[in-house]
């Protein structure tokens, strides 16, 4: 077992985890404040990736694309909130599941309509190209380190936003008591739109950042969406801290599990059987983890105070 390989996978896990955090923080915020399950959160991730790819292709600048992803996803989020989501607060979860499932169909097919069925490609910006040599002499891509950095910044920013600003105070009030906040004379409709757009922008940013690692295509948001749900359920729905912890746990367990499980099994069974069984088990690993955590702590690791 080589240490550099393990270190590389650990970093990959962290990068994956911070990307999941960008998705999960919005999802958990929207649930915590508005009580809404948003299956269409993955569509906003896709919108961000497409906005970034399109603008980067037109202007040649990844950074303008990144700005476009934030703005595009936030705008799409605000629009959807005003037109549809607003009518779903206070409905039961079943209605929310169906309506946001319908939104996925609309977003996916709409994007295919606009951009066609072929995947788009997004280049890593030259500034972040290249690799850094890790101790133990394995090169590691700077871009992935940058994603980790961006995730850390967003986590810090969200913490400051929620604990130090007026908007954050209102969000906390909204989580504690939805009627209270209306009684305080806060314009609750605008607050909800802002929270939704903020969540959407973070999802869009995640989409754009990942778009440069993979291809940008319709349906790219769905696997990530499911993982983001796993993250917030593990962390405790409504808790940003839980989302951060859950995202890093899921990212690291998933990535290192794929490396370590086949290795671990190969000491018991033949290498080829170990490879296939290990891969099968590794792909199930985080779901097993989630089931275990929920079986022991039915409301997640950091249950939110309200609801």
């Amino acid at each position, binding site marked *: 077992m080589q240490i550099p390989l393990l270190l590389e996978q650990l970093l990959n896990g962290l990068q994956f985890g911070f990307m999941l955090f960008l998705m999960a923080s919005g999802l958990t915020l929207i649930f915590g404040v508005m009580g809404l399950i948003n299956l269409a959160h993955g569509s906003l991730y896709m919108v961000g990736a497409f906005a970034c790819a399109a603008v980067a292709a037109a202007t040649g600048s990844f950074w303008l694309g990144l700005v476009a992803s934030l703005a595009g996803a936030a705008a799409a989020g605000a629009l959807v909130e005003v037109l549809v989501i607003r009518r779903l607060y206070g409905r039961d979860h079943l209605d929310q*599941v169906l309506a946001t499932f319908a939104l996925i169909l609309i977003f996916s097919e709409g994007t295919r309509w606009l951009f066609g069925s072929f995947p788009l490609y997004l280049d890593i910006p030259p500034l972040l190209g290249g690799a850094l040599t890790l101790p133990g002499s394995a090169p590691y891509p700077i871009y992935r380190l940058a994603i980790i950095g961006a995730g850390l910044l967003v986590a810090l920013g969200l913490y400051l936003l929620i604990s130090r600003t007026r908007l954050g105070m209102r969000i906390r009030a909204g989580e504690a008591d939805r009627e209270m906040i209306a009684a305080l004379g806060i314009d609750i409709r605008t607050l909800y739109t802002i929270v939704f757009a903020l969540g959407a922008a973070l999802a869009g940013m995640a989409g754009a950042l990942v778009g440069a690692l993979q291809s940008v295509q319709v349906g790219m948001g769905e696997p990530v969406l499911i993982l983001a749900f796993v993250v917030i359920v593990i962390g405790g729905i409504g808790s940003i801290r839980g989302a951060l912890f859950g995202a890093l746990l899921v990212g690291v367990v998933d990535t290192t599990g794929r490396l370590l499980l086949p290795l671990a099994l190969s000491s018991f069974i033949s290498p080829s059987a170990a490879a*296939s069984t290990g891969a099968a088990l590794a792909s199930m690993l985080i779901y097993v983890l989630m089931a275990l955590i*929920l079986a022991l702590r*039915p409301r997640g690791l950091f249950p939110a105070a309200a609801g």
Partner: protein
Amino acid sequence: MARETVFNGLMILVLAAIPAAALLFEEPFYLTLATRLAILALAAVGLNVALGLGGLVSFGHAAFFGIGGYVAGILAVHAFNMEPLLPGLPGTKSMPVIWVVSMLLAALIALPMGAISLRTSGVYFIMITLAFAQMIYYFAISWPAYGGEDGLSFYVRNGFPGVNTLQPLPFLLVCYGLLAAALLFFWRLQHSPFGAALQAARQNDVRLAAVGIRPFKIRLTAFALSAAITGVAGALFADLNRFVSPSMLSWHLSGELIVLIILGGVGRLFGPVAGATVYVFLEYGLGGITERWQFFLGLILLGVVLFARGGIIGLFAGRPRHG
């Protein structure tokens, strides 16, 4: 009450008319469409036991649909290749045997899955059922023995004694027969003591416990029954396509089953049938007009949630009443 009875009568007529019409047109495509409708409706009748009667929003019923499908596929392939499944345990091409096995296996897997999931409620329940289904989905994708990601084909449809299932029409009738049996079961269940307890668990589980019935046992039993019905639908679906793949286990399918029920009317006897009928016709009708049919399907579904609460049956017959 009376209007829902009228609606149910109408739905029985529609159910009978669809194969008759399909036969009249003698178009195998329509027969396949009608068979698909019956199978999806059957799967949704299964989910309706848990979701409609018991209020258990399972977002993981694709797991049972896929399990049924893989039971059919795996048993058929073993029978075809004459390899025993385990020493002394041969495969089979007999539908009734496959049905029983798929129901038992689906229920058997639903028991531990339900036992853990039922510790949670609300969104957590939705998400943990989804997670279990994903677990099985990824297992199927990465387990190479039965085709992995590519799925598993079997070349000859399984048989039912006295019926030529290779012909579209007899197979269609087999599927409608099972759907009718499931509807009859659901109807009896709805008015049975178990059904009363299950509906009580949905409305107010503390009240159920306070009359001396443990909600957990009732819900777990309902979850397993529900899984068994959806499982047998999966076996039929595999037989329809003579192919089974991880897509039968995907979360999209779980979502679709929920859509069918909400579209038709949650907890209504004929809700799944009405939902599947409209869904299949929309898919086919819109698909004939525009390549972008999913876009418009999305809009229509959105319209139903926002403006037609209670689904099609709700529009027609108003809120359900329990005499």
